[in-house]
């Protein structure tokens, strides 16, 4: 794509419509990116807090679907918490996700390990993959939306602008991502 190409009036208008149509997704995506950045920036602190919680408090018991029992240390995100258990005197940590499905709540170990900091790094890496999946799906939905609204018109520049903005939100620290855009103003 030629990023110096100016968008047409129709493309500018389509961008505004797309932004309105996908505003909830875009806002939520940015919110989750911020949360991920906060976790990445505070790995050490979160790790220390989890370790302290494991030492100080027995915590409520969390039984995961694989049959193992953990003790809750702290909440990492909504429905995601850090837990621990002791095996042969050693502390093992886990990131546990609870999914409240209609058939019953599932509890899965997303990541586990003896080094809580390394475990959180792996967790953050996995969440980046999830956010990429979300970004790709939303941009695919935008293409479909624009195809239906503007059949026969080239709206690549519009979708690419959103894709670029979402990629930046995921890649950068929130402070760096402010007021940066290219292509269509979104």
């Amino acid at each position, binding site marked *: 794509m030629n990023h110096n190409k100016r968008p047409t009036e129709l493309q500018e208008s389509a961008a505004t419509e797309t932004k309105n149509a996908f505003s909830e997704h875009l806002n939520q995506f940015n919110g989750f990116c911020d949360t991920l950045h906060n976790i990445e920036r505070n790995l050490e602190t979160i790790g220390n807090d989890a370790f302290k919680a494991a030492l100080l408090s027995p915590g409520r018991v969390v039984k995961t679907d694989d049959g193992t029992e953990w003790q809750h240390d702290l909440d990492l995100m909504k429905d995601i918490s850090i837990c621990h258990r002791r095996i042969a005197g050693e502390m093992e940590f886990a990131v546990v996700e609870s999914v409240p499905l209609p058939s019953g709540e599932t509890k899965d170990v997303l990541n586990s390990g003896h080094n809580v900091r390394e475990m959180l790094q792996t967790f953050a890496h996995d969440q980046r*993959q*999830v956010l990429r999946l*979300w970004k*790709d*799906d939303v941009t695919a939905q935008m293409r479909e939306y624009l195809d239906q609204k503007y059949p026969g018109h080239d709206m690549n520049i519009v979708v690419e602008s959103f894709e670029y903005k979402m990629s930046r939100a995921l890649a950068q620290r929130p402070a760096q991502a402010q007021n940066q855009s290219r292509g269509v103003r979104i």
Partner: protein
Amino acid sequence: METMPESEKPAPATAPLGERLAYSIQEAADLLGIHYYTMYRLIQRQKIKTCRVLRGKLLVPRTELVKLLQTDLR
């Protein structure tokens, strides 16, 4: 710890479950009563199978939803 953003009340899917072969992520999340970020997490961990249609949009087959609901919703 910062609270994750959540939609207040998911909008209902546009068609009854029994009439469709597959659903968008948003629709599937609404039917299951979970946030769509949770859906993407389940997909990334291969807990839910999806297919990609034109333009790369993800769809959740009805059979996958029924499996998660453990009941036929028709």
